[in-house]
């Protein structure tokens, strides 16, 4: 996605402030805002005018779908958003990885599978992704984008007689069941077992 001009972002900030004043501020504050930003006065006035004519009583109970086609919306969305795939675990040593696993209530076996993208990302509880992101100094969005990547080949497999192998990703629940986690922690992640 192309970088937006700074003035566009400043204008958006000003209009956000105008909207906040319209919702909670007094009229003098509104006039002051227009005076403080003469370069955006036209946009401010147009925004206030649009707010004035909006029908607050109009119902939004409407079962119609989006007016744009589904394909069009999705195409535009994914065109704008190719998620990054940097490895947030690459700089962590063994000690740090053990610490991360402990903080996030998993064992190093599950963590290893996660770092190698061997677990189906859709089966991972959102809170584990959030905790992992915080533990490795990343954002959930960055981490999840990485986890969605292709399963990594295990180095040792290169030396195996049969050569490198890739199996399908496993469900998180299965990774927990076959892990070395205590029964209590297994119940924590899989309360129905």
């Amino acid at each position: 996605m192309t970088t937006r001009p700074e003035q566009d972002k400043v204008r958006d900030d000003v209009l956000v402030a105008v909207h906040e004043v319209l919702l909670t501020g007094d009229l003098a504050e509104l006039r002051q805002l227009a005076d403080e930003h003469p370069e955006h006065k036209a946009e401010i006035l147009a925004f206030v005018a649009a707010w004035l004519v909006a029908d607050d009583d109009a119902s939004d109970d409407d079962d119609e779908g989006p007016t744009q086609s589904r394909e069009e919306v999705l195409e535009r969305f994914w065109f704008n958003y190719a998620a990054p795939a940097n490895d947030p675990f690459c700089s962590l040593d063994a000690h740090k990885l053990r610490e991360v696993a402990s903080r996030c209530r998993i064992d190093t076996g599950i963590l290893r599978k996660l770092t190698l993208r061997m677990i189906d990302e859709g089966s991972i509880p959102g809170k584990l992704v959030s905790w992992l992101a915080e533990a490795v100094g990343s954002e959930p969005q960055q981490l999840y984008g990485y986890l969605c990547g292709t399963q990594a080949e295990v180095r040792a497999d290169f030396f195996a007689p049969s050569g490198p192998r890739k199996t399908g990703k496993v469900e998180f629940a299965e990774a927990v069941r076959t892990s070395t986690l205590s029964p209590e922690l297994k119940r924590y992640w899989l309360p129905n077992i």
Partner: protein
Amino acid sequence: MTDGRSYSAVQPLTRVSKKGETYVRPAAVEQEIEAALDLPLNEAFRLAAGGHTRPQTLVYFLRRFRPNRPTPEYNALVLAFFTRLERAGKRHLQPFPEHMRERATEWVTTKVFEWLEDDRMDIFEVSFKTGVERLYLTAVAAIQLRMGTELSQEDLREADSDETGDEAADALAYRLGQSPMSAAEAKAQLASVMKLMRPEERLAIGYVVLLGMTEKEAAAEMGCSDRKVRYLLKDARAKARDKELKK
């Protein structure tokens, strides 16, 4: 092995209002997001896309768990978001002709992508309705600036009263009372009158009564003559007076 963490996995919001207060989600939304984070992500996506969660929860997952490629579950989330957005934003486009509504919808979609990129979507996690209003009003304002407020010839008719525009504006302003009030309160107080007004009359009231502009300044903004603004205010005054008489 230690027991690990037990604190919330819900990420706090970071945007700050004009008054310096960090945006905060309602408690019920926080709780719902917390509960949804307990679930496998695809299950959380399905619930949110299926309308089984608040829209704020949908936006939370849309922003923070985007895969690096399209998946059916995440795509359903994207479509559900845009459907809810358009449904909630429709009322802001009702006064406008069809071709302008299409442009506005297109503009809103572009703006959503910009706001996602700039991380400006916090307001949607506080109040989806407020976020929609902010987005659509920005869209309408941008389009109106380009198109101008075009007033048709049929609107150019003489008002019945000899009252000047300033007198009409003063009379309307009197309804707002003497004490300072919020713009929202002013809109609410004028609401019963505003309902009777055409969009151009509402604009004139807004510029002159709410923003304290002169007729000339309002006319410059509206792209019409001072005389036109005067007529609009007189018409508005006449409608308000008729409404008072019918009480």
